[in-house]
């Protein structure tokens, strides 16, 4: 199998969306366009789960992973989620192929353990060599203020890990709410991990949390990139 491009959107937020269209719907839309949506909820207290159901729902609809964590363990979580979602994407492609060849019920898990081990080896190779396009969409509403240093550190960490892979990685950073729109692009596609963390904004931008519209808007970034590719080919 030739290594293709894995596209992910990583949403970092601390609560519930409160305006605009349903983020779950937007995540489902992203998934249909081949983009996996992962969500990490950053909370002060893990027991207090307000708005956390939405986090799980967005990730499920987006075919990705979700976690609820405290700011202190954000770095490790961001890396693990990205990695697991990459593996998940590759497995879901394999499952689809299997269903095509065998029957509707077949998944990798219904194969004997020995066969699964062989598949796992291939999956690891692919996830190491595939190109990764990762768009980070960060909630900058007022309540995120104290968590921003942890977010910055986590993004630096993530970029360092992804750049240690064999395959190429590119990153883009979006924040929401934007000044004039639901979300705004802070850093366009770059393969420079330093740029991602260095130009991370320090100021929060407002009280509303338009998660749905923000996802919709940031997705344009992936779609433009595709169009651009087609033109150059």
């Amino acid at each position, binding site marked *: 199998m030739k290594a293709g491009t894995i596209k992910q959107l990583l949403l970092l937020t601390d609560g519930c969306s409160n305006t605009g269209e349903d983020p779950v719907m937007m995540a489902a839309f992203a998934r249909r366009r081949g983009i996996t949506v992962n969500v990490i909820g950053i909370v002060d207290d893990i027991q207090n789960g307000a708005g956390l159901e939405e986090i799980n729902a967005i990730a499920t609809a987006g075919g990705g992973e979700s976690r609820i964590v405290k700011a202190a363990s954000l770095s490790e979580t961001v890396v693990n989620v990205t990695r697991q979602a990459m593996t998940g994407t590759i497995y879901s492609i394999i499952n689809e192929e299997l269903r095509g060849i065998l029957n509707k019920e077949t998944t*990798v898990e219904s194969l004997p353990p020995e066969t*699964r081990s062989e598949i796992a080896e291939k999956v690891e190779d692919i996830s190491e060599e595939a190109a990764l396009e990762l768009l980070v969409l960060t909630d900058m509403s007022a309540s995120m203020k104290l968590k921003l240093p942890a977010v910055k550190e986590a993004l630096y960490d993530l970029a360092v890990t992804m750049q240690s892979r064999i395959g190429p990685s590119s990153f883009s950073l979006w924040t929401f709410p934007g000044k004039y729109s639901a979300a705004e692009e802070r850093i366009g596609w770059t393969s420079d991990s330093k740029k991602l963390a260095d130009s991370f904004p320090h100021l929060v931008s407002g009280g509303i949390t338009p998660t749905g519209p923000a996802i919709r808007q940031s997705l344009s970034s992936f779609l433009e990139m595709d169009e651009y590719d087609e033109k150059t080919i």
Partner: protein
Amino acid sequence: MKKRYEPIPGDVIRGKWTGHMWRVEREIGRGANGIVYLVTGAIGQAALKFADSASVASETNTLKSLERVRGTSPGPFFIEADDAEKEGRIYPFYIMEYISGPMLHTFMINKKKEWAFVLLIRLLDFLGPLHQASKIMGDLKPENFIVADSSHKIRAVDMGGITKQGRSVKEYTSLYDRAAWQAGTRKAEPSYDLFAVAVLTAALVEKKRTQEALGDVEKLAGIIDSSPVLCLAGPVLKKAIRSEYHDAQLMKKDLLYCITGKKTPTRKRKPKKSSKKWVVFAGAFAIIFVMFLLH
């Protein structure tokens, strides 16, 4: 998050593919990607790990590849992989050898701090063959190792972080992670592991100060210099945290010179065999010497 199958002591787990039965005795470990239980089956005691299908498959591969390294595995021997079926859901697991003994940090309780060097030597013995097999350990934390017998041989009990050299490290813990200290990349190469063992040694001796210094290697170097125990191996530890060691054997050799109080000799043109013998003697002497100090 995915649903886990959490059996209680006394439960019997039946493997879907082999038909083998495993009776759960107790939980012995819990990590980010799975839970390990002590179980009894027809072959006697073993360790059973539940994890997601992808992790089971990939850890199975790692364990099998380690057995190819040499007759004795630096990790647990792999026994079999299977599935448990409960209420229509499939829960993949694998069975491995049960290694008993204290974890590194438990081992250090009530012992003189100098024991950290014995563990470091043993860790370097562990890493040497692993690196030669083009793999790195990745997640080098005290909880992942067991002091297996009276000769203080160390074996790994969690293989989740083992990564092929040249790739990006699969699993790590911030405190022992080179990138988290902003001292280099997270690329799987011997110097990554050798950085981690140096921090691990520092943490075994000066836990709190090392944790507080996380992110600042210069501070860590300061801790090594100022600690009456760590400074005995100062030059070696500091060289390791600068990622200047690429070979576990060489680091061990330097460490032995260091703690026996001899300066690193300038390399003379000696026939290889005799210099090797000399190292073995120095090693044996150092271990006896350290043990003597501690008793």
